[in-house]
């Protein structure tokens, strides 16, 4: 028992005394230290202490959720009373079948790195300066903007079924944007790394990547509108899949007919070489957890197996509605959990099964194609249609990656994209919660300014 788990249980008992028969309580405490660089100079260091409590009460399936930033008894009482009254104010919902029952939980390895927790601000600044030195090591780099964030979190979750679970988590995040100039030309390259483990090499890797892509983008061309093969860098693939699968397979979106994957369970949705798993047990991955936001133990599951859609992502509500077991995909948000939002359905760590294609093999038979590295667009989940700005992309010409492409777009339906994945790379990386290698799409519509 910890101080936090005792508090969580006490609040569950408090809610019961107020008449709330079904509830869960999250007691969370996060400590976040950030160092920031602006134009290659250390600019700011921040420290956030963020303890708080979230109380969720169900009354006839209607849920009231209240959070407070105080652990003072009077204020927690007020929050509990409010949560009970809000649950009673809502519309009864017979689809809610109950919160998870307690089960023995096995701690997942690689959630907490004492080295992260012990890192002092001065050390964080020094690590960030290594990044700056690396990213600046080219005369064409005019500015480096970067950040390093060290987070430690401890949570205790208790519910009215007697469930009590606790865990400690860390996160070590590095981000860099390098700006290159040559005459009137200007371009920026970005990269980032995020892990539960302190990796002293990641500032160097991130800084080097940001520098190289900034410089590479100084040479650019316009694209002609047309259909081209597209190689998705892991950064682009991760960003797209985080919504396409994370949102598309979300059981809430499925049940409410808001997803292009509704009604497709057990059917072919992609090429045979495409397999995607959700794995909350990956060591040091930022989405890993010993239990989900409602206390369900970690479950690795295939979402797409050899092109066939195998499961949706469930929390307790949607699982009850479909009369299946929760897949353990209730999320309290982020690497270090937050008490400020009701739990929502999310993947833990999506993993795209790697193939055996090298990058050279993916581009060598493209006479004309596109290498898409960065986009921040989201698909239309209802239709499954996706169009995006190619924020950082490169022309593939005669089997080589060439200059950057300016002001161009890519469009394709997601099911078309999944079915047109003809090569899968062999070198995965973590990107936006997804561990994925590069993916080649045999053809997508490119809109260009040429």
């Amino acid at each position, binding site marked *: 028992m910890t101080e936090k788990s005792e508090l969580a249980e006490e609040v569950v008992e408090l809610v019961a005394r107020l008449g709330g028969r079904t509830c869960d309580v999250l007691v969370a405490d996060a400590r976040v230290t950030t160092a920031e660089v602006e134009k290659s*100079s*250390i600019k700011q*260091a921040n*420290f956030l202490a963020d303890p708080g409590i979230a109380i969720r009460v169900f009354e006839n399936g209607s849920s009231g959720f209240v959070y407070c930033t*105080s652990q003072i008894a009077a204020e927690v009482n007020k929050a509990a009373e409010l949560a009970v009254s809000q649950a009673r104010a809502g519309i009864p919902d017979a689809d809610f079948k109950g919160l998870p029952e307690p089960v023995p939980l096995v701690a997942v390895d690689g959630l907490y790195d004492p080295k992260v927790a012990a890192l002092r*601000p001065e050390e964080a600044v020094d690590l960030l300066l290594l990044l700056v030195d690396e990213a600046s090591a080219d005369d064409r780099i005019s500015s480096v903007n970067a950040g390093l964030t060290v987070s430690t979190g401890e949570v205790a979750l208790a519910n009215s079924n007697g469930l009590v679970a606790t865990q400690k988590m860390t996160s070590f995040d590095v981000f860099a944007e390098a700006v290159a100039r040559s005459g009137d030309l200007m371009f920026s390259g970005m990269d980032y790394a995020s892990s539960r483990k302190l990796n002293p090499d990641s500032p160097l890797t991130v800084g080097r990547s940001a520098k190289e892509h900034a410089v590479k983008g100084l040479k650019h061309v316009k694209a002609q509108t047309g259909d081209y093969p597209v190689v998705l860098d892991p950064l682009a693939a991760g960003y797209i899949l985080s919504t396409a699968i994370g949102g598309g397979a979300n059981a809430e979106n499925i049940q409410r007919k808001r997803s292009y994957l509704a009604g497709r369970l057990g059917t072919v949705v992609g090429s045979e070489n495409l397999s995607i798993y959700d794995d909350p047990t990956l060591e040091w991955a930022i989405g890993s957890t010993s239990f989900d936001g409602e206390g369900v133990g970690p479950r690795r599951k295939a979402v797409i197996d050899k092109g066939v859609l195998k499961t949706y992502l469930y929390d307790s509500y949607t699982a009850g509605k479909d009369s299946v077991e929760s897949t353990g995909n209730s999320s309290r948000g982020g690497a270090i959990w937050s008490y400020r939002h009701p739990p929502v359905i999310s993947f833990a760590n999506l993993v795209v099964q790697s193939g055996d294609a090298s990058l050279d093999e993916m581009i060598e038979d493209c006479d004309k194609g596109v290498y898409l590295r960065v986009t921040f667009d989201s698909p239309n989940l*209802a239709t499954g249609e996706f169009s995006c700005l190619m924020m950082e992309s490169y022309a593939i010409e005669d089997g080589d990656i060439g200059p950057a492409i300016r002001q161009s777009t890519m469009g394709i339906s997601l099911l078309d994209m999944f079915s047109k994945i003809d090569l899968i790379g062999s070198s995965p990386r973590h990107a936006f919660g997804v561990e994925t290698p590069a993916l080649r799409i045999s053809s997508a519509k490119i809109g260009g300014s040429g």
Partner: protein
Amino acid sequence: MEDLAEAVIGHALSLGAEFADLRIETISGVNILVMDGKTKTVTARIEKGCGVRSFVGGGWGFAVCNGLELSELKTAAEISVRLAKVSREKAKLSFKIESTKPIRKTIEYPCRTAPSTVAVADKLSFVLGLDKSMSAHDERIVSRSASYDDFEGDRIVANSFGTLVKTRETWTLASCSAWGKSDGIVQRGHEAVGNVGGFELMHTDAAARCGEEAAELAIRLLDSKPVPAGKFTCVLDNKMTGLLAHEAFGHACEADAILAGASVLEGMEGKAVAHEDVTLVDDPTVSETFGFFPYDWEGVKSTKHVLIQDGVLNEFMHNLETSSRMGRPPNGAARADSYASPPIVRMSNTYISPGNAKKDELIGDLKEGLLIKGGQYGYVEPAKGQFMFKCDEAYQIKDGVVGQRYRDAILTGLIQEVLKDVTGIADDFELIDPGYCGKSGQDARTTDGGPHIRVENVVVGGLT
């Protein structure tokens, strides 16, 4: 609370801060989310805390605590000074924060019915009404989400120049999403109504129509086709003009991006960056808008920012630091999404000013192009000079006639070129699109708008 603020500022100065400020806040708010006729969640927030910021030489330190006891705030001040010194120790740049005239002011945003005085049942009844208006609109509406948010906050901004601004801030927001289905096709429509003010804003016609408009859009889109990709002349409606102003230009005019060497507009003040008919403004002083604020989160009086005047880049948006370093007067553009975040340079109400043309002329003159309506989202990288924004719906224009309806069009452009390609500005100005702008992990409430405008050479992303 004023004494507490001044004691903490004094403590930071005594520890070596050259400048210090803080934001003390107590916040309450309710969110109600109804999905398909049932309450998904009724959420309430109860927050109080303080963010203390210290400055030494060229380094900032910022520390946050969730509590308002003097001892907690003093500890936060001590941490902020220590972090400022850590930053200063390794900083290559050295600068000062120029002193400003102290402001002592108490502000209350306009509010007739404080949300905290309205029973949750009444708020829920309003949201259920929105839900019903969507389901009743058309039997092809298969799913609905209706939500309501309110915010009431008391904020003290104090700094070591003697400023102490107390603000009572209240705002409310309703939003609706409807999904229509026909012949296996599913489409979504969305509408939002938000403003500073109390629950009285939920009794307006605009709020009452919010659900129907979302449902109507979802149904309209059912017979749409994917937009063709390529380069087009586009006529943008009021919302899309606002999104263009915000994404294509507003972000690149935030002075922190200029100082970071991460905006293609660095060194462009006084130079032509747009067609001479284009005037582009960010104005937090427009009352009864979602982006309204009379004093910013550093206690500086907000002012109208004319970013582009008659096609020429006129000014940037500043906080105390950027104005000090760039030798400009502070113009009140610093915002923080709560006491837990440091204030950064942000937009408010961003728009292109009206011209003299008629909307119908912009379309009627066009041999071939697209009419683009309703903004979903957008983003920009000022250092790359590229931006995009996504519309709700698009229409083919052929020989001046509006025809085939399209969906899911994204528009892309280059910051330094797009406004030079404006070839017509209508007189039908509206500032109507409330939403949130994200930057550095912080959300800020904003409004965008403008008249219909016509822009050449827009690259449109589509599937066909």
